């Protein structure tokens, strides 16, 4: 075999290898990309589940704070009520920020101004100023607790279905 035919055969083998290798390379790139995307989606899912669990814990905390607040108001312990309503407002704002779904926004849009009005009344009481707290306040807090319980139920259902 002379040098020219050797070069010819080597080129031919090289060309054939390219024709076979290119689709394999493309197929492997696509496979790797799909695997990377699947792994990214799994990581997002895990992150969402963790974040939902944090929100659930925060919501349970809100229910405890509401129960404490109602007790404090019933026994006219305004110092305790002031501490609890401050914590409640902060936690509710946190929950609202942590919840990606805007469908739950309506639960917070009314409760937050209602709570800040109550907080201002409680602060006036702590300072010894004359301030009246409406009779319906305890039932308003109970209604808010009911809304949060429904929200907890929805989040749990979403977690199970995922």
């Amino acid at each position, binding site marked *: 075999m002379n040098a020219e035919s050797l070069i010819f055969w080597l080129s031919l083998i090289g060309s054939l290898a390219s024709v076979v290798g290119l689709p394999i390379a493309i197929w492997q790139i696509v496979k790797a990309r799909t695997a990377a995307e699947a792994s990214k989606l799994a990581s997002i899912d895990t992150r969402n589940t963790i974040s939902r669990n944090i929100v659930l814990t925060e919501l349970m905390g809100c229910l405890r704070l509401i129960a404490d607040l109602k007790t404090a108001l019933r026994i006219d312990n305004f110092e305790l009520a002031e501490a609890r309503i401050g914590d409640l407002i902060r936690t509710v704002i946190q929950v609202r920020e942590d919840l990606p779904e805007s469908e739950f926004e309506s639960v917070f849009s*009314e409760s*937050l*101004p209602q*709570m800040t*009005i*109550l907080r201002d*009344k409680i602060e006036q009481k702590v300072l010894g100023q004359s301030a009246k*707290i*409406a009779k*319906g306040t305890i039932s308003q807090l109970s209604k808010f607790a009911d809304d949060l319980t429904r929200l907890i139920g929805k989040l749990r259902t979403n977690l199970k279905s995922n």
Partner: protein
Amino acid sequence: MERKKFEVILDRLLEKSMGGSLRWKSTSDPESFLLVLKDSSISVSHELGFDGEVDREEEYVNFDFRNKDGEIVQTESVARIGKKADPMFEKAVRIYSSARNEALRIDETVDRIIEQLAA
């Protein structure tokens, strides 16, 4: 807040309140009523006072403008001191009365009483 903007808000509140399209809610303050908007809210309250030194009655209607977190970002008051009243005072009182009526369902209750007394 510019007085002109406040006047525009009062006009719109009055118009919608009279049309019955605003859902005012009662609050933990018996004299304050809340209107929840998309990402803000307004509360309106009424204050009655008496300045004993000059033997003069004072009346205020306060509007608190609240942000998404429920915190007050601006307060506007409309007053009547003795016989002198702010030009927007009557409008403000009508808004307050309408808010109170809507939140406490006063008309509905009174109508039911009338019905029951007629039976």
